[in-house]
């Protein structure tokens, strides 16, 4: 029995795992493979079982099943076909050039990257190849050692509140560790970045009613399942916490959105909602930097994709030019002609 065994594998490594599993199954071993990655389930299994809300909702042969039908069974309703709309690339919002930052295993080396208004740029890579430092930089927790780091044409902020003021909405990688305070209420967590704004603060005193109202609106708009603004955050499910984080990050209509592993561990329904919100924000002109280990997610959302390996980053190229194997090779550190820089030129 294997539970999400491919979570931190490159596609090539996953393929060799699948080959081994097929061999084991052929020699008479029963294999139970648990995954939320539909292509893997479809590629590997003989029989597919779908669980939803603790119930078995389907048990059918893999032959004849497709992604769409399985996804529909998992959500319990029709799933929108995921295809990023063609971008209307605007002016550069995030611009990194010759950038070095961090130290040790997770450092950034000579990074060039431009994210324009209205586009979603995906960063692929096995965790621990510099993504953490990249995210910390954009979140305002890390400074570059050398190189240029510009947000909206001016040098980027050096603290989290700087970045928030500059119009950067940030989703932390680990929603429990860096996202929210479990012992505080939904409303208190929701206004954390804007706690000193005049909307929520009068002469050092918190405006309780305004906080409640903001929380009620966010709970409604983002379909957060919780008893109310005063519920203790720790009692919410991961998906609902992520929806609140998203509500907080999007609250000021940010110009740049850092989405670091935005749907890790979420069910398909919540994932779909997070994706919808990110697409919507991009359509309204925000630049989105999407860091993800989930290739399906990267392909579903990104207009352009870059791959990180050992602190280096490939040029970000049109997602339509890429497939899983090209990304997989780049994740393992092998050059691929598909990542030759295209018309996109660093600003």
């Amino acid at each position: 029995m294997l539970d999400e065994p491919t979570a931190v594998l490159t596609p090539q490594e996953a393929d060799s795992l699948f080959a081994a599993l097929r061999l084991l199954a052929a020699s008479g071993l029963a294999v139970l493979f648990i995954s939320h990655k539909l292509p893997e389930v479809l590629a590997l299994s003989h029989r597919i079982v779908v669980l939803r809300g603790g119930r078995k909702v389907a048990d059918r042969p893999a032959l004849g099943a497709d992604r769409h039908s399985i996804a529909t069974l998992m959500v319990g309703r029709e799933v929108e076909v995921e295809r990023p709309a063609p971008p209307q690339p605007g002016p550069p919002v995030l611009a990194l050039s010759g950038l070095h930052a961090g130290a040790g295993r997770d450092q950034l080396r000579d990074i060039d990257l431009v994210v324009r208004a209205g586009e979603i740029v995906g960063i692929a890579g096995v965790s621990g190849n510099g993504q953490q430092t990249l995210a910390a930089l954009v979140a305002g927790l890390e400074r570059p050692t050398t190189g240029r780091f510009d947000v909206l044409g001016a040098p980027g902020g050096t603290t989290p509140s700087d970045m928030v003021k500059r119009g950067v909405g940030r989703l932390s990688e680990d929603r429990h560790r860096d996202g929210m305070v479990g012992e505080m209420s939904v409303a208190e967590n929701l206004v954390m970045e804007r706690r000193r704004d005049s909307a929520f603060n009068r002469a050092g005193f918190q405006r309780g009613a305004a906080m409640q109202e903001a929380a009620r609106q966010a709970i409604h708009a983002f379909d957060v399942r919780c008893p109310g603004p005063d519920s203790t955050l720790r009692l919410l499910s991961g998906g609902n916490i992520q929806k609140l984080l998203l509500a907080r990050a999007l609250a000021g209509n940010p110009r740049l959105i850092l989405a670091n592993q935005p749907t890790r561990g979420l069910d398909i329904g919540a994932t779909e909602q997070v994706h919808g919100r990110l697409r919507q924000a991009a359509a309204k002109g925000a630049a989105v930097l999407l860091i993800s280990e989930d290739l399906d997610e990267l392909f579903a959302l990104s207009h352009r994709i870059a791959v990180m390996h050992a602190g280096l980053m490939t040029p970000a190229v049109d997602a339509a030019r890429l497939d899983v194997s090209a990304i997989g090779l780049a994740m393992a550190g092998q050059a691929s002609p598909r990542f030759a820089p295209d018309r996109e030129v660093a600003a």
Partner: protein
Amino acid sequence: MIRFEPRASTPLVLLVIVPVLSALAALGSALLILALSGAPTARAAGLLVQGAAGSVFAITETLTRATPLILTGLAAAVAFRAKLWNIGAEGQLYAGALAATAVGTGIITLPPLLMIPLICIAGAAAGALALLGPVLLKAKLSVDEVVTTLLLNFIILLFVQMMLEGPMKDPMGMGWPQTSPIIDEGVLPRLVAQMRLHAGIVIALAASLFVHVLMTRTVAGYEMRAVGGNASAARFAGIPVSATLVKTALLSGALAGLAGVSEVAGLKGYLTSDLSPGFGYSGIVVAMLAALNPLAVVPAAIFVAGVFVGADTMSRTLGISNYFADLVVALALLCVLIGSLFTRYRLRLVRAA
């Protein structure tokens, strides 16, 4: 099988009843131990209650003892809420008392309406300053504040002893290691004729209300709670964690310093090196009994003070050691911790499948 389920919210009734039952359970089990050792239990219990609350004198004595405990309890509650483990309230209390004595023994003479606030501010500032070093070491160099604050207690106490034997020794004190008395203008007024209860209790109650409002209504208190709840998430959301810890430390130290002011200017009148029988450490117990709630610190401090005052009466009459009070307080702490299980979780009987 019994299963514990986290509660979404705790009914207010439970929040009041559980600590009261815990205190009663602690008294009950302490008396059980007394009974096992062959002492006259019923009489002991009677004397304990009588000594703590049986007369105007008993009540004022209990409140007098509770005054510094409220302040050191608040000092611990504020710091612990931000996960700043200040074990140094004892030293901060002495620092506050020393500063109060330094400005209050004749260097400056002002009318009482100015003199008392001046002494309070001096003591609070000294207490705050005593915690500033440890918190800066923690914020900048990640030095463990449990060690620094604890060890600083002994350094401050030795410093006080040095001052009492040297520069601040009372020339009229017949050679005793004590300071000159606080001038009349600086002495906290007595509240009940013939009794020792003084205006320190008013300062302590006001402090409790102030801390409550600060923690629940202000952005500063919100930031302290956020840093205590999850420092990493607070930093990500833009709360300056180090600055918040420093603010928390200054408040916590100031409260402990005020306890020293209250003892020296309200009760003793001059400073000696046995001003506090461990009020700084007992404050930690008070804060834990109160579940770090600044309003609950008041009844918790009165309970602990009552046990100590009552145990004195009991031990004088029956010859039972007044360490009995420590036993009751320790049991109360255990009972409250067990009791908090019932406020945080709901018990459900589950039939084995």
